[in-house]
């Protein structure tokens, strides 16, 4: 008996009566400063837009995210948004959401469902493109120089989507030219400590490193310390390319220690709330909304630094 009553009472309590939209947002976790900024942006924007936010943190586990989405369905939220931990494996739960008539918005990362009716829109960045931008900067920088250019790569967590994509995008460009050689590539788990440790080992086993490509700023910042301790000048002796664009990276850029940062913007809260309102209203939305992102070099860094929020 209870099961038949519950949905009704739930419906009455939520979106229906007071006209306030409830958004269920299933976040990946809080694995990095970038992610925290992302979460904060969503939470702040929801408050500003007057949307009730049901927030759930999956601690980096897909199964937890799926559970959270099921709970949202159970709670009869109006819209579900989530940043998928990984592209695959969402069909079942998204179908349940669809059956329950709850629209879904993807943020930050896409899912690979064939059935695109399972979600309304995607809002976020393209990791492959970020990798490509990094590669393109490098190709341009070394356009006139003779090879070989020895590159070391600090990968993100093995198997994680950003690590896979940023690596692939970068490789795509770099492989076009024989003079670029990736001499070593290791995972630094997206952390400063690991970045430093791995870079220190690279410096010992490879004497002639020209370029460091780090999948995120934290690893780059760790690596910079290792390079300095080895008596080299980061940014000069070894050129450094990094992704994300956190404040500390911009500081390092103004000090000349990082050469270029490819931005990956976490601040998509406002855009998300806009989309939520539209979707809840039943308006049509574009299937793909990309966030505004740039490539920052040292000369732009000083000027952009004060505006960095995270």
């Amino acid at each position, binding site marked *: 008996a209870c099961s038949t009553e519950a949905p009704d009472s739930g419906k009455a309590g939520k979106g229906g009566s007071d006209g306030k939209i409830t958004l269920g947002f299933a976040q990946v976790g809080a694995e990095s400063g970038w992610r925290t900024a992302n979460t904060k942006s969503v939470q702040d924007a929801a408050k500003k837009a007057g949307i009730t*936010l049901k*927030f759930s943190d999956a601690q980096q586990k897909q199964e937890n995210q799926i559970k959270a989405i099921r709970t949202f369905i159970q709670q009869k939220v109006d819209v579900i948004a989530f940043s998928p931990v990984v592209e695959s494996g969402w069909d079942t739960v998204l179908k349940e959401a669809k059956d329950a008539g709850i629209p879904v918005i993807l943020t930050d990362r896409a899912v690979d469902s064939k059935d695109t009716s399972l979600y309304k829109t995607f809002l976020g960045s393209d990791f492959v493109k970020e990798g490509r931008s990094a590669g393109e900067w490098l190709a341009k920088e070394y356009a006139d120089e003779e090879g070989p250019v020895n590159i070391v790569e600090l990968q993100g967590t093995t198997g994680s989507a950003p690590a896979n994509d940023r690596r692939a995008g970068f490789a795509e460009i770099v492989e076009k030219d024989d003079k670029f050689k990736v001499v070593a590539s290791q995972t630094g788990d997206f952390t400063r400590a690991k970045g430093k440790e791995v870079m220190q080992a690279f410096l010992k086993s490879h004497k002639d490193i020209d370029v460091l490509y780090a999948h995120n700023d934290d690893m780059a910042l760790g690596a910079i310390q290792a390079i300095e301790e080895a008596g080299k000048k980061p940014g000069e002796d070894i050129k450094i390319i990094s992704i994300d664009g956190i404040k500390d990276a911009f500081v390092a850029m103004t000090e000349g220690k990082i050469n270029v940062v490819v931005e990956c913007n976490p601040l998509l809260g406002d855009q998300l709330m806009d989309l939520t309102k539209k979707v809840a209203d039943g308006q049509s939305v574009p299937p793909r909304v990309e966030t505004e992102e740039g490539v920052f070099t040292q000369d732009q860094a000083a000027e952009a630094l004060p505006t960095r929020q995270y």
Partner: protein
Amino acid sequence: MSTGIANTAARPTRPPSRTGSRGAGTRIPLIVTAVLLVAMFTVGSLRYDGFFSTQVVLNLLIDNAFLLVVAVGATFVILTGGIDLSVGSVVALSTMITASLVQHQGWSLGAAVPLVLAIGAAGGALMGWIIHTFEIQPFIVTLAGMFLARGLCYTISTESITIDDPTTVGIAQARLYGPGGLFVSVSVIIALVVLLIAFVVLHHTRFGRGVYALGGNETSARLMGLPVGSTKVAVYAISGLCSALGGVLMTFYMLSGYALHAMGMELDAIAATVIGGTLLTGGSGFVLGTALGVLVLGTIQTVINFQGTLSSWWTRIVIGGLLLVFIVLQRLMTGRRASTD
């Protein structure tokens, strides 16, 4: 040596109260855990709209079917006084192999699943064999197994593999409806069957009783002429098999294979087992307790999701806090104090 005293007269009669309470004593933790679980659920229902529904309970099963299967396997190992850290990785490896066979190699699900289960069981048996034959601590051997299985996932692919094979999708999305529109997934049925089988095996077969004896005292079990070696190998094989099956269920759950699936699940499985009242030192515990343990972890998760206002870190703190409250109440209610003072 004969004493001339009638045996029956001199034979001490033991106070019956003692016997009675001791017999039930072993089951008290189980009852306490169940009571606390119900209490937790009640509190959730009072606090959150939509919490008090049968479907929430069923979702608990749907969402934790694979963990239940894995934890059941872990229970066998823990009952012998061992530990299996490889379960999470074996789950991931199983999702990976299933997905790549079905998706990339074009195998049918019916062919892939038995192979995956066989690999899991064989891997477990191998670890058990090493542990037994070379007398290496299970912690290290299964840790190596954990590394190996996770590493093999990466060598298959660092990308996740989506499955769109119609049979697999069909099974994964099949819902068995009951009265009132309530539903469960196929995995739930499988998990419950596994639980039932495990219960029967542990409590009603020679092998199962051997598992308890082995956990009680390995030397004694050997001296009593029990097949200690094969029992050990078998429990790790069962754990491997359950992990592989858990992996298959997870493949259904996620419809994908991914190297980063089931990260840290070994701890969840061990925690569920221990919360369910099984002693990590072996020899004491019930597989039904493990099921309760899984439900406890699942309920905590559900409560958190229903709360829906916790930041990432508060999520963790509250999970820890709820666990703490649960454990402390469980301890106090079972009334056993530490043997230390």
